[in-house]
């Protein structure tokens, strides 16, 4: 019969062997170019490295003691993933563009490729992560212990397991470190991706989910009569039902603080950054992970509360709540299930330790060791073995630190408390990342200040108390405050009392952190490099990435660059990268010049291997960079403003074009209107001509057909024919005049003319007409009216037109027409008033148009051609005057003509007689 401890250890060993196999298979597939992890599902599963043994065992423990308080740790990431396209994909793409390989590298690169920032972040990350790694080791050994203590449940013979247990943590630490070293530091590569590890992590995520869900279903369906049964029985016990009433005084603020802490952690934890950014194969995988990862979190948390309640209900009091996941199946004799649960917890712990140590080793190597070696000048020609050695050492060191921590602080803190303290440490990077990505002015000095301040407060309020409780530091510090000042008590700094220690530490550290970043950034100027890096990160979406080369000028030899990069990446790989770059730019690889882009390429390649800060120092050693002078900056500025000017001009031109188009459209409409008017005119003229012609023709035919017609009648008919012929002649003359005036072909005999004289002559000439119609004509023409420049005959024609028009509309026998001439300051006004029906205001313009006769033309036979007024107005306007119509004082209409004085005549050219043709 197999010993219980042997069975457990065998299972654990077999499981680890399986992990090694998967990882090595993943690496082989990657080398063959058929990636195992090029899928959004695998990506989401690898993100689930977030769920460590802390989730697996600790959540149940926390739920057993304080209800739903464990949930904010998973709600926070869900919220952050809602911001996936705003925040995460931005980090992802920026990091890909700059070959960023760790969170320290990201912050260093953003804040002017600062080695100080990189170093500080690395130190904090290591200090913050060690307790967390310790937590994993402790969880594995604790779970193993529980399993062995309950050997009866495994159905095997009990043996004394303490000898095995004593060294469990060391063994676990050793195996995990070996795994991380084997698959995490295989080679130095510009991309720092480890496909084998990711494949193993994804597999472990499945194992931990399946085993946890199995325990949950077992608790609900086997141990109890459904989940409702668990809740019902729990409700019967007051100490359990109060877990759901959200009753603690600081429950709200703790909830918010934990949510915030988790939001920061999912972005800032070194291992999360490793799987989310560095190991990402394709940024598009993030899209599906935005909901797959939260869905995973829901699934793994769904059974936490039922397991906790079931445990509290069925396991004897005094059991460590952090081990309920194991104790539950063990206590009821389901040893195999307990073994599965143990493997789930082992997966959770293993994946965390592996990824975290790999991420930390990259940071320690690139951001602490390499800068130090550079300063000391200890880097040989081929640095790869050195770098690999440093990384392997770093992994071993971190795991060893975790092991040491577990030995020292053993038992004093619950799993969740250690985890939260760790979260609070890395959360110190969160403000720097947010400000760094969205606020261009966030500066290196501000970030150094903020992170240092936040970290110191964290150490004082959260780390020291854990040491104090372990007996490392005097307990008085914790109880009375430093130097005996009670305001400095670590758990109630400045008297802020009544909060959970983690909330308390988070509030103070974040306050100082953010204040440091914002305050210092507002008052300290950035260097040129910081400014250009800030622009690259903050304005990434605007395509600022393509402008990188413009703000650089210097001299370098390509051979130097190749040799330099080759020292870190290997000669062949480097030459290939440079050749690919040359091909990408359409150049011959041998003709690649050491211009800005080439230097950037070298720096990018190096950044992938040793981090951006170190890469910058290395490249600077072979490149003589010239600072960009004011002139150069002005030139760049100039080009920009020129582009702005061009676009402004372009806009202006397009506006002008629009205006021209509108004008053309209007002109076109006017042309159509004129065309229509011409057609109207032709048809009207034809009509006007046909009327007299018809009557002439019909009377002529009567005369021709009836030779025996009476003499008197014959005379009458002939008179009509003559009259109609005259009308026809008049009409034709008028039309000829009109056409001539319009075409500008009329001959004008311009001379000095007295309007009074012309008026008197016209009155005299029409005297007979007035007498015939019994219309009285009054002439009020004074002497001494100034002369005007006009064509006498045409002016005469105008007056005659107006008078005959007036007589036409005056009532027979009672008609009275007044012809008057007056002078005003700059001209002569000639008016003809009648006492006829008058003209409606709406028609006053129309009557000056051709063939427009006011009144009902159907019943009243029109007299005159209908062209008189149109011709008159044209003539008057030719003389520089105006013609219009008004209401006469005693009813009727008054037509007025105004002509300028001789001195005010329009222009010399018009006033001169035109040469006769």
């Amino acid at each position, binding site marked *: 019969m197999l010993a219980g401890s042997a069975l457990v250890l065998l299972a654990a060993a077999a499981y680890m062997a399986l992990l090694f196999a998967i990882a090595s298979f993943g690496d082989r597939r990657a080398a063959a170019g058929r990636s195992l992890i090029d899928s959004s599902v695998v990506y989401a599963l690898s993100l689930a490295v977030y769920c460590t043994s802390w989730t697996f065992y600790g959540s149940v423990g926390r739920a057993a003691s304080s209800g*739903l308080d464990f*949930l*904010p740790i998973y*709600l926070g990431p*869900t*919220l952050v*993933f*809602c*911001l*996936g*396209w*705003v925040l995460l994909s931005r980090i992802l793409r920026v990091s890909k563009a700059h070959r960023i390989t760790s969170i320290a590298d990201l912050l260093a690169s953003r804040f002017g490729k600062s080695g100080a920032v990189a170093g500080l972040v690395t130190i904090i990350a290591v200090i913050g992560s060690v307790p967390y790694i310790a937590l994993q080791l402790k969880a594995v050994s604790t779970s193993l212990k529980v399993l062995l203590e309950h050997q009866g449940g495994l159905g095997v013979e009990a043996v004394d397991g303490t000898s095995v247990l004593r060294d469990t943590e060391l063994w676990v630490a050793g195996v995990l470190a070996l795994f991380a070293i084997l698959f995490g530091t295989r080679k130095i590569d510009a991309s720092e991706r480890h496909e084998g590890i990711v494949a193993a992590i994804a597999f472990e995520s499945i194992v931990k989910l399946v085993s946890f869900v199995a325990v949950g279903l077992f608790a609900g369906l086997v141990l109890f009569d459904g*989940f*409702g049964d668990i*809740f*019902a029985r729990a*409700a019967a016990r007051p100490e359990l*039902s109060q877990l*759901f*009433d*959200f*009753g603690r005084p600081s*429950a*709200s*603020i703790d*909830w*918010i603080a934990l*949510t915030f802490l988790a939001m920061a952690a999912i972005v800032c934890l070194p291992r999360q950054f490793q799987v989310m950014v560095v190991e990402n194969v394709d940024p*598009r995988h993030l*899209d*599906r992970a*935005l*909901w797959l990862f*939260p*869905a995973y979190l*829901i699934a793994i948390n*769904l059974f936490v*509360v039922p397991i906790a309640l079931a445990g509290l209900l069925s396991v004897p009091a005094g059991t460590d709540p952090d081990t309920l996941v194991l104790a539950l199946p063990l206590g009821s004799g389901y040893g195999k299930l307990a073994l599965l649960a143990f493997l789930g917890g082992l997966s959770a712990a293993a994946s965390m330790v592996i990824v975290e140590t790999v991420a930390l080793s990259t940071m320690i190597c690139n951001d602490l060791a390499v800068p130090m070696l550079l300063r000391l000048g200890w880097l040989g020609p081929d640095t790869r073995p050195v770098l690999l050695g440093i990384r392997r050492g770093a992994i071993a060191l971190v795991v060893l630190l975790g092991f040491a921590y577990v030995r020292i602080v053993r038992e004093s803190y619950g799993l969740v408390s250690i985890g939260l303290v760790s979260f609070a440490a890395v959360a110190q990077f969160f403000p720097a990342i947010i400000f760094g990505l969205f606020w261009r002015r966030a500066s290196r000095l501000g970030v150094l200040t903020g992170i240092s301040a936040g970290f110191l407060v964290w150490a004082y309020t959260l780390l020291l108390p854990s040491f104090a409780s372990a007996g490392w530091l005097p307990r008085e510090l914790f109880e009375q405050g430093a130097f005996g000042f009670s305001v400095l008590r670590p758990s109630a700094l400045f008297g802020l009392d009544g909060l959970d220690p983690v909330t308390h530490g988070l509030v103070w550290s974040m306050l100082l952190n953010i204040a440091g970043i914002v305050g210092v950034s507002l008052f300290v100027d950035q260097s040129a490099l910081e400014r250009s890096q800030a622009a690259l990160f903050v304005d990434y979406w605007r395509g600022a990435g393509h402008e990188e080369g413009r703000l650089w000028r210097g001299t370098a030899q390509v051979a130097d660059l190749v040799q330099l990069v080759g020292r870190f990446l290997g000669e062949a790989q480097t030459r290939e990268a440079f050749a690919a770059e040359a091909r990408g730019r359409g150049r011959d690889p041998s003709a690649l010049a050491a211009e800005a882009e080439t230097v950037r390429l070298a720096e990018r390649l190096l950044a992938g291997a040793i981090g951006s800060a170190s890469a910058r120092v290395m490249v600077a050693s072979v490149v003589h960079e010239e600072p960009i002078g004011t002139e150069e900056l002005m030139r760049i500025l100039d080009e920009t403003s020129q582009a702005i000017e061009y676009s402004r001009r372009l806009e202006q031109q397009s506006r002008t074009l629009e205006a021209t188009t509108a004008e053309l459209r209007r002109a076109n409409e006017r042309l159509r209107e004129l065309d229509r008017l011409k057609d109207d005119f032709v048809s009207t003229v034809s009509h006007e001509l046909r009327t007299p012609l018809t009557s002439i023709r019909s009377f002529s035919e009567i005369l021709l057909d009836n030779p025996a017609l009476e003499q008197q009648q014959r005379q009458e008919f002939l008179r009509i024919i003559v009259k109609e012929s005259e009308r026809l002649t008049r009409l034709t003359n008028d039309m000829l005049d009109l056409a001539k005036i319009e075409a500008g072909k009329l001959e004008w005999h311009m001379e000095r003319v007295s309007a009074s004289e012309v008026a008197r002559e016209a009155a005299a000439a029409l005297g007979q007409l007035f007498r015939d119609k019994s219309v009285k004509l009054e002439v009020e023409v004074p002497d001494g009216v100034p002369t005007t420049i006009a064509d006498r005959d045409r002016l005469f024609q105008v007056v005659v037109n107006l008078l005959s028009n007036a007589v036409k509309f005056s009532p027979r026998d009672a008609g009275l027409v007044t012809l008057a001439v007056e002078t005003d300051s700059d001209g002569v006004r000639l008016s003809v008033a009648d006492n006829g029906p008058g003209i409606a205001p709406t028609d006053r313009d129309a009557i000056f148009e051709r063939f427009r006769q006011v009144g009902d033309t159907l019943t009243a036979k029109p007299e005159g051609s209908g062209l008189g007024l149109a011709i008159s107005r044209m003539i008057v306007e030719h003389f520089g005057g105006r013609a219009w119509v008004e209401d006469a004082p005693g009813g009727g209409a008054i037509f007025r003509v105004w002509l300028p004085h001789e001195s005010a005549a329009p222009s010399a050219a018009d006033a001169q007689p035109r040469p006769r043709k």
Partner: protein
Amino acid sequence: MPQEARRRDRLVGLFALGLVLFNPPVLRLFAGATLFGWPLLFVYLFCAWAALTAMVALTVERRRRRSPVEKD
């Protein structure tokens, strides 16, 4: 890409919704009560969580279906 931008805004809207859904004053509304014997707060939290995730999935996946070849 207005379509892209609209989806991105929708996700930010879901983030705001999440902030509201998981806020202590809202949670207090459900604390202490039960639904068919289940603690109401427990039921509410997981339902809200699942609904939020489902809405994220709908937003993200619709985009995927419409444009299988993404350019950015």
